[in-house]
């Protein structure tokens, strides 16, 4: 029903006509301002993925994401309903024991105190779904979906990790095809998970991605593979590749920050993904390389990580709220855990 919002939020608009600010290199991220919204840009997200463990020792994967998009509207429209900002939120819970993925979503145009993304510091909410940064520096999120609910506090243990060149992260062959991007890896999680009416305490580790852009994907891009991995030794790795329509890699990148804080940034040629296992979604018919081998060329040679999913069926069909179909799953690797995101497998993504 709502294919249009995806179209709207992700519609390819000729850059010349774009009233949006262009993402350029040479900025310095400032906090807490950059935790807050950047409403002038076309797209923005607050993206938390992580692993939880219940008191009984069960592993759960979770995702809480708030998206913000700025549709093209007539700025003269004085109506309080004018869709100057539209907010989306997704939440998912992967239960390894049952092999089931619960997910829920919210959409709203900002306004009337029912939905808004604050500037100055992180605070995004759609009715009773919320993600914000508390004055003590912790992040807190609360979602209440059909069948499950999450109330989590996320405490940073490391400073933010600016991606690309100090936060300017290229996504395509043209320099404006880029985003401002930082991550906060190794967030210590504590909180409560409610499933089927039963609430239990959980602890775990998460990864926050913050990204805002006006021109994220090149027209020739099909989608991307992305992973964020928290290693047990305190190091963190992010890698992505933008896939070209018809096959091949259009762009790639990423970074590794070691426990001592030293950082290696990957050039497009340094990163490669190789499928190890394919899973076909019975719901959408899309096929996903849910297990992959990630190869990264570092100064000391090529390092390889095998990304193995918690379980295969971690696809999210969020077309109901106007977003695309994608796969977002908890994965394990040697000495670490994280999330793998696969987009553009059901249909080419435009952003």
């Amino acid at each position, binding site marked *: *029903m*709502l*294919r*249009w*919002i*995806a*179209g*709207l939020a992700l*519609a390819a608009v000729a850059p010349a006509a774009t009233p949006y600010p262009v993402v350029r290199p040479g900025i310095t991220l400032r906090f807490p301002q950059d935790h807050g919204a950047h409403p002038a840009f076309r797209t923005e997200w607050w993206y938390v993925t992580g692993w939880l463990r219940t008191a009984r020792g069960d592993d759960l994967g979770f995702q809480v994401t708030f998206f913000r998009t700025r*549709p*093209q*509207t*007539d700025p003269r*429209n*004085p*109506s*309080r*309903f*004018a*869709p100057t900002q*539209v907010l989306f939120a997704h939440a998912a819970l992967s239960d390894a024991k049952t092999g089931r993925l619960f997910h829920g979503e919210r*959409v*709203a*145009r900002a306004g*009337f*105190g*029912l939905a808004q993304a604050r500037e100055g510091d992180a605070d995004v909410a759609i*009715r009773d779904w919320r993600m914000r940064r508390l004055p003590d520096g912790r992040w807190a999120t609360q979602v209440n979906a059909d069948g499950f609910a999450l109330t989590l506090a996320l405490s940073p243990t490391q400073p933010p990790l600016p991606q690309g060149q100090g936060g300017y992260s290229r996504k395509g062959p043209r320099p404006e095809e880029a985003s401002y991007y930082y991550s906060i890896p190794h967030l210590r999680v504590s909180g409560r998970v409610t499933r089927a009416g039963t609430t239990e305490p959980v602890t775990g580790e998460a990864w926050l991605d913050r990204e805002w852009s006006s021109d994220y994907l090149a027209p020739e891009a099909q989608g991307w593979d992305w992973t964020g991995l928290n290693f047990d030794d305190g190091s963190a790795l992010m890698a992505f590749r933008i896939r070209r329509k018809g096959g091949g890699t259009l762009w790639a990148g990423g970074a590794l920050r070691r426990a001592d804080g030293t950082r290696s940034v990957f050039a497009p040629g340094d990163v490669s993904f190789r499928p190890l296992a394919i899973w076909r979604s019975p719901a959408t018919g899309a096929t996903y390389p849910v297990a992959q081998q990630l190869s990264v060329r570092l100064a000391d040679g090529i390092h390889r990580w095998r990304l193995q999913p918690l379980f295969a069926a971690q696809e999210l069909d969020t077309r109901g709220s*106007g977003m695309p179909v994608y796969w977002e799953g908890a994965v394990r690797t040697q000495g670490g855990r994280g999330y793998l995101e696969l987009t553009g497998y059901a249909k080419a993504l435009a952003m």
Partner: protein
Amino acid sequence: MAAEPDLWSGRLALGWLIGGEWRFHPGRFVLTAVAIAVGVALGFAVHLINGSALASFDGAVRGVGGGAELSVRAASPLGFDEALYPRVARAAGVRDASPVVKLDARIGSARLTLLGLDVIRAAAVTPALVGIAPERGNDAMFAEDAVFLSRAALAQTGAKIGAHVAVTANGRSVPLRVAGTLPGAGDTAVLGVIDIAAAQWRFGRLGTLDRIDLAVSDRAAAESALRGLPGATLSAAEAQNAQGDVLSRAYRVNLDMLALVALLTGGFLVYSAQSLSVARRQRAFALLRTLGMPRGGVVAAVAVEGLAIGVVGAGAGLVTGYVMAWAALRWFGGDLGAGYFGGGVVRLAFQPGAALGFFALGLAAAALGSAIPARLAARAAPAAALKNAGDVLDPRARVAWWPAAVLLVVGGAVALLPPVGGLPLFGFAGMALLLAGGVAGVPWFARVLLTPLARRSGGAVPRRLAIRHLHGAPNDAATALCGIVASTALMIAMATMITSFRGAVDDWLGQVLGADLYLRTSAGAVFDPATQARLSATPGVARAAFSRQLPLTIVPDRPPITLIARPERGAHDPLLVLIAPAVPLPTGARPVWVSEPAQRLYGWNPGDSVTLPIGGGARFTVAGVWRDYGRQTGAVLVDAHDYQRLTGDTGRDELAAMLRPGADTGAVTAAIQARLPADLRDQVEITRPATLRRFALTLFDRSFAVTYLLEAIAILVGLAGVAATISAQTMAREREFGMLRHLGLTRRQLTAMLATEGALVGLTGALAGIALGLVLAQVLIHVINPQSFNFTMSTRIPFGTLAAVAAALSGAAAATAILAGRRATARGAVQSVREDW
């Protein structure tokens, strides 16, 4: 019983009897079957049309409502403050809330409902209202210039996807692009959907909403949390559908009743035809019985004939009714011109239950019409019947008057009972009893009327013969009279009611249209204060009264009443004609004058305190009741200053101007036209009272057009019955005519005798019918009309119609008698006497 041969053994004789009757008198069978067919067809057609119209109305309401089970609706088109939206969205039990701006709009001359929606919320709450763009033009959803049209809206506007159209609403015309369709809105809703922000901005509705559709997680909690919202009511989807039902139910039931009248008349026709056929075959039956056919055989013969007539007639009636309904929907629309369902598209929906019901009714009418004569025939002693084919009633015996009197009294009493569920069911029952009483009293009435005539000696031979015949054979006459009396009475009753109603409306129009010029805006345009001042100052205008008219929802499941705001305080308004005297108001009370239907519907009596949902719920005191035939759902009049203080609405949509003496209406009209702002000029209609009056009466006549038609058909069926009865009776008296010729009567004299007889029967029927009709009219005027439409009126008798009916009936009866008599006396007198059965 064992001694009597069984029915089965007589089947051969029975077959001959029925078969022979059909072979030799096919015309009568066809005629009676047609009478039943007409009744069934009318009833079925009316029922189908009503059912289809209501289904489409429901469909349109559902289409515009988008399937939300619960909605917060503005009490009036002024809407409510959008600040209510977050409050409603956060209320307990509410899962999601979709705010809606609703406008009455037009594209060209096509009217449609324009909804401004937040498509994100609508997708969750009312997905049926989310538009689909044909190609990848998906960003159209938030586009300020995109409109999505339902199928009916596309058809009525003739617009194509991608076309640019000018949409006019709330007095503004906005160019929009047809971006796609609304496949979920159904086939009947004439609907357009645009973005809510664009609707607020481009159509001047900033800060205002008209509706909030709800998806609820806990309906009871939501209902209790959302009670008493300022300027809005919580209403369920069922309540919206109920509005259409309530609005038109009385009208639909009345039409159904009229259609049944035609069927009833058909039943009488069967009765008279079968009575005559039985009387004529009395000797045949008697012979068969003496030859050994059981008593039941006679009853069976007549009953089988009746059933055959019923099956053929009712079957033909169903087919005809379906075709009629289809044609009527095609050419007149679903409300048959009465204007109840707006301009919606109506599709014919076949209703098997109704078809079965009307078939059964047709069959029952035919069977009952045959059963009574069959029993009479069976009762006759075979030996006596063999000798005498004539009337079995002794003219010297007194005719009982009390069964008729009892029926009439009971009928009158039943009619006075209160309505059931807003329907005058007891009124109709009372009418049926009165009708039965009237028909039962016909033999007595005929005797009373003819006895003084019969006692008089002297006068022309044909006249005396005619009177003697009627007086001596009252049963024959009564049979013919039943149909006449029934159909005449019903027709006179309807004619009297309509004359009274129309006369009352005409008088009322004369009172309320007291100004010299009227200006009315369309498509929500208003006269702003500056325009009002400019128009008031037009040279030649002595007094300009601006008013505002708004629909106002009082109860969610009833159609809205009309709120009229007009300067009333301090100035005596000659146009406000009160039927209930004004009461002195307590000081500081805000007056409201309620219309008669509003008083009857909501029980608002002078002195009562009333809360109206304007300005967040304001208290008024009823200062008087005024007559209003224009707004069946009720209307209230408040002072313009009170209204403005409560709502802040300074716009007015109507102007009644009194001109200075000697002012030229044409010149003033032109001057007013010139003073209108340019953007308002083509949205204002200037009319003179005469035009309005003509228009109102045309509307009135149109809404009664179907009534007239049904009535005319009932009369025709009645006249056909008279003709059939009289001609059959006349043909049966061939031997009597032969005898009279032998006694020296000329054919001319015979013809005169028959004409007199016919005229007398017709006149008697007409007189009885008119008397009974006037009684029935009182039930219609004082019971059925007020209970159905909440209008009261005084009786006006259509003397012209009465005279015409009496003349037409006696004329038709006489003419039929003469024509039949010509044939009956055509053969030689000798042959006639010789003729043996």
